[in-house]
């Protein structure tokens, strides 16, 4: 059973039941009931497509509010690399880091620094004997959940390394304890500044038996507005960036892959493209590739729903700012080929695969026959008026007992037309 805590919510006051979100949901997780959208938490992958597409701003992300950092004595900011692309006229990352100190954080640990460490580990991992290729990145939480729900066959392809957010949280906490030995563990607040709701869900749910070391996940847009008030060019930053080109590039689709210095890599962005790539990998229909980078958001993390700037503009800014950065400031020493055990995650969360009708094949076949028969009776125009995204999903809902065939508006229209025709004929008979 999935008891996954999600970070996408609906404001029922603003929802008009327009079916836009339902039509765009890649896992068909949304239904419209009583004129309002409802998300099935077992199917939702927190991709944020509904937030992107809602014309009435009814869909929201649930993150911690920035004020919650006050709960902690020692607050460490973990900015995602996408944050650097949000600012106009920025020529030096240090100004953003200083800004974070000025708005109330005690220290900053760039996730891009941890990303360079993860890239170094990944380069080593790809040389390991006997691993299943293509290796699939676990950086995007939407993708890992999607694979668990819909492509369980590809679970063994996932790279078992913790993503940069977690590596950053772990190192940041260690460093905070070292710098301030008088602090207790609960005094330290590790706060990730996120471009998306999926990372917030990841921190709330952990991964399998791994509990996230992130205490708070705050929306990048909320932090942006705090930062622009304090970022001033006159003041020389007291803090300097500890990441290079590779770290910053993780925010863009292709950045994570390019860090592997290997031309047998593939990078895809946008949830529908991610699904089609996973389909092809599952079918064995791809050339011999070593590594696959998958980003649910268009253009990568810069396209997350909690960012401020247009992803293409943010990408251009990051290209400019990374132009003369050293390739990487964090890597393993040259001859080092050992990845610390604590940087791996031990197990994969248990997910109920979405497309399985039941645990018993016989039962599944019976249900499928019912669905197919029912589907033939339905109009097949996928209008969404019944509250399901398409007629096939509606047929499934009926068979599962969560919907009734009488909700089909097209069937009503046909029945009403017949009634009118009969009524007219009835009149003529009477007057004769």
């Amino acid at each position, binding site marked *: 059973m999935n008891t996954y805590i999600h970070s996408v919510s609906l404001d029922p006051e603003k929802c008009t039941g327009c079916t836009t979100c339902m039509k765009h949901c890649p896992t068909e997780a949304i239904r419209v009931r009583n004129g309002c959208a409802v998300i099935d938490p077992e199917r939702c992958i927190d991709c944020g497509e509904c937030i992107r597409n809602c014309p009435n701003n009814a869909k929201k992300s649930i993150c911690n509010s920035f004020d919650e950092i006050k709960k902690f004595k020692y607050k460490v900011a973990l900015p995602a690399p996408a944050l650097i692309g949000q600012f106009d006229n920025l020529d030096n990352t240090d100004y953003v880091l200083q800004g974070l100190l000025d708005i109330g954080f005690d220290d900053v640990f760039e996730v891009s620094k941890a990303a360079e460490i993860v890239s170094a580990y990944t380069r080593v991992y790809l040389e390991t004997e006997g691993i299943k290729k293509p290796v699939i990145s676990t950086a995007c939480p939407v993708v890992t959940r999607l694979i668990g729900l819909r492509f369980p066959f590809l679970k063994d392809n996932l790279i078992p390394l913790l993503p940069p957010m977690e590596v950053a949280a772990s190192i940041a906490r260690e460093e905070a304890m070292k710098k301030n030995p008088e602090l207790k563990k609960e005094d330290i607040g590790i706060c990730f500044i996120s471009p998306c709701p999926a990372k917030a869900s990841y921190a709330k749910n952990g991964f399998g038996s791994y509990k996230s070391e992130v205490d708070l996940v705050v929306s990048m847009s909320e932090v942006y507005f705090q930062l622009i008030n304090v970022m001033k060019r006159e003041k020389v930053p007291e803090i300097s960036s500890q990441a290079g080109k*590779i770290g910053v590039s993780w925010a863009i689709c292709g950045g994570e892959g*390019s860090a592997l210095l290997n031309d047998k890599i593939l990078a895809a962005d946008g949830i529908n493209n991610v699904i089609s790539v996973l389909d092809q990998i599952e079918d064995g229909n791809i050339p011999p590739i070593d590594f696959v980078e998958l980003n649910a958001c268009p253009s990568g993390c810069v396209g997350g729903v909690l960012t401020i700037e247009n992803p293409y503009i943010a990408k251009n800014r990051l290209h400019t700012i990374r132009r003369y950065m050293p390739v990487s400031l964090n890597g393993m020493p040259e001859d080092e080929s050992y990845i610390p055990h604590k940087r791996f995650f031990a197990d994969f969360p248990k997910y109920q695969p979405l497309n399985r009708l039941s645990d018993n094949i016989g039962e599944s076949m019976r249900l499928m026959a019912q669905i197919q028969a029912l589907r033939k009776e339905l109009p097949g125009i996928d209008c969404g008026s019944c509250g399901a995204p398409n007629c096939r999903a509606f047929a499934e809902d009926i068979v599962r007992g969560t919907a009734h065939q009488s909700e089909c508006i097209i069937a009503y229209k046909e029945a009403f037309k017949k009634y009118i025709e009969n009524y007219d004929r009835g009149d003529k008979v009477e007057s004769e």
Partner: protein
Amino acid sequence: MSEPLGFHYDVDGDNFTSAGQASAQVKKNLRQLGFDPEIIRKVAIAMYEGEINMVIHAGGGKAHVIVEDGYVEIILADTGPGIANIEQAMKEGFSTAPDQVRSLGFGAGMGLPNMKRYTDYMQIDSVVGEGTTITMRVNY
């Protein structure tokens, strides 16, 4: 006459991920010396482009930055394959960088032209099969 201040680096050709660190270090040093930010920017960019070239094309080399009276001199010396056609290499857009590094933004073919643009003096000495030495100066 006192010895001019110099910074010397070994640029490792086998470790691509460390490329660019020498010029980052020079930038820090010049900032500490109190040079004009515009001068620092020119030196840093010229040296960065040359350093990356040494790693990508020449298997590494040695970098020297010397603060002379009135100019900063940058000498980048390698024992790589050398440049067969210097005129062609100086053309904007011409690049022999491998595919793997292009997605990181390299290989636009602007390295040598940028080095010339940002410096007040540039000289390329290259012998095919023996190596290349580039000497640049930024006046201040």
